[in-house]
């Protein structure tokens, strides 16, 4: 009689064990199928998105090559996630051969690379899935989030006509406020442009009326968001015409932030008479935080 209880217990435990093993087997099998399918799903989605993006890079490349001084930017709305997880996109070019678009997700861990031929230089850049911009700023192709400044001009200073001795030339300044700059948090009082390399007289012929536009690009799209031209209250040309200080009342742009770009376009500038590359340094609010750039004039 005592054996009967044992046999019942044994039978019960054995039954439990068998069921557990069977269910575990089912879990493992289903889990593997799901993992495999998710990976495959993510890979196939990334491949499609990569190719869509490659088409956009090619489009921008084509637009960049279509004419002189071309600039192009294209906004692409990609899904925010693939197979339920977010992903990153990297546009890379190591100098030789075609460029590569690498799309990566962490969970499942999948990486897909799509090649793209390019005729214009590509700068290595990254973006997250979702809405992003493929831009060509006149020198290279870049991708980035919509507000990343992909479209902003990288050149600190440039002249519209690069012929030596040209007069009445338009000069454009793009001063991007760097993190840690003393200008941050204080009103913008001045922008000082100082041309070195022999101090050529570039600004003697300019006046406040030559300002084409002055403003701040706060979202990095290369366009002025806040116009501060009306805040200009002084115009000082010193050092024989090689330094220009544009004074501002300080009431229009009171809270500069890192990443903002002060854009100033002035007409009536005279190019240096002799061809060459000239150093130009620019500071804001006289804070001594100079940024250095160059302009090059050709014969």
């Amino acid at each position: 009689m005592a054996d009967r209880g044992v046999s019942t217990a044994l039978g019960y435990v054995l039954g439990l064990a068998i069921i557990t093993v069977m269910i575990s087997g089912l879990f493992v099998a289903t889990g593997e199928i799901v993992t495999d399918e998710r990976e495959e799903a993510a890979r196939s989605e990334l491949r499609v998105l990569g190719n869509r993006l490659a088409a956009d890079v090619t489009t921008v490349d084509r637009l960049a090559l279509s004419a002189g001084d071309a600039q192009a930017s294209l906004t692409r709305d990609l899904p925010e996630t693939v197979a339920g997880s977010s992903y990153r996109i990297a546009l890379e070019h190591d100098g030789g051969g075609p460029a590569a678009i690498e799309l990566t997700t962490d969970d499942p861990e999948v990486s897909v690379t799509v090649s793209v031929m390019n005729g214009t230089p590509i700068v290595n850049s990254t973006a997250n899935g979702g809405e992003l911009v493929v831009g060509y700023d006149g020198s290279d192709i870049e991708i980035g989030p919509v507000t990343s400044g992909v479209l902003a001009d990288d050149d600190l200073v440039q002249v519209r006509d690069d012929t030596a001795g040209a007069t009445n030339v338009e000069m454009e300044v793009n001063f991007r406020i760097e993190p840690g700059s003393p200008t941050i948090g204080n009103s913008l009082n001045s922008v000082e442009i100082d041309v070195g390399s022999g101090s050529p007289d570039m600004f003697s012929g300019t006046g406040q009326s030559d300002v084409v536009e002055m403003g701040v690009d706060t979202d990095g799209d290369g366009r002025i968001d806040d116009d501060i031209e009306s805040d200009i209250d002084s115009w000082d040309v010193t050092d024989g015409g090689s330094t220009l200080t544009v004074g501002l009342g300080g009431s229009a742009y009171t809270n500069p932030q890192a990443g903002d770009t002060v854009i100033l376009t002035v007409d009536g500038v005279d190019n240096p008479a002799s061809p060459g590359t000239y150093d130009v340094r620019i500071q804001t609010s006289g804070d001594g935080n100079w940024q250095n750039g160059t302009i090059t004039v050709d014969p």
Partner: protein
Amino acid sequence: MADVSGGGRSVSPPEDAADRAQLLLVAGLVIAVTLVVLALTLNTVIYTENLATRSSDVAGGDDSIRFLDASEDAVAEIVARANRDHNESHAALRANVSVDVDAWRNATGRSYATNGVVTNLSNRGLINGTRMLQTDGSRKFTDAAGTSTWTLADDVSGTRQFRINATNASLANSTQTTLESDEVFYVQLNGASAAWEVYVYKDLLASTINVTVKNATSGVKRTPCSTGGDYAAVNVTAGTVGGESCPALSFASDLGSSYAITYNDTETGVGDPTITGTYHLIVDDGSVARSPGASFNDGPGNSPWADPAIYAVEYDAVYETGRLRYSASVRVAPGETNG
């Protein structure tokens, strides 16, 4: 739960029997939910794969290029039409071209705007030039005063639509090796760093009209291009002879930023023509019409004559949709081979 305490007959209570499949039930549910989630995941794949079947050019990249091409064609046509008229001054010509470009911009701007596209053309500059031509096909290539060797234009940096149509019967006979000693007509393009000569003559041996290009600095002659028939159309800037491509004529890039165009030996020592026919060219020097004076008649119709012309138009084109922003600087100088 089974009673395993021993002592007495152990029988599971009947109400426990209903609980025994709990584990299976829960496991089945979990697996079912997992499969549903998988189905949803695969659904997103269908959506993404669906993207692949759509056009990749949603932003309008093709249309923007089309707009740029259309603007180039239109501006080229405007310039060509303005140049065709006998213009009194560059000022009048510039005004005409500017008004026409503005009219085109406004008309296309409205039409694109109906599709939500913003387009614009902004004129950056017109480059003055001079159009020189001879339309009397029986005339020699001498200047207005009858001078045999003469300069059409000096200090030019660009030439476009330079076409010569020579009458076969009038051309001097020669061969590739005796071009210099025979009195053969040639155009000389003399730059600071290089000089090129384009000889047009009748080849004695092959009975064809030949064009030989010689590098005047090194003296090396390129393989001649030839054509038959009563007339030979030589397009110096497009690099064609008789409508066929002539690689020997691609030398424009060597000439640099300042060169002179000279017609040489347009008649023999005794005054017989070495070439008759028509020619046409536009150079980017607006002063030619006035400065040599005696070389050209005041025209039109009185060959050879020179008119003020627009050599090139430079403008910025902008094309913007909700997703695409594109701007380009364009220079239109139809038929130009060098900048």
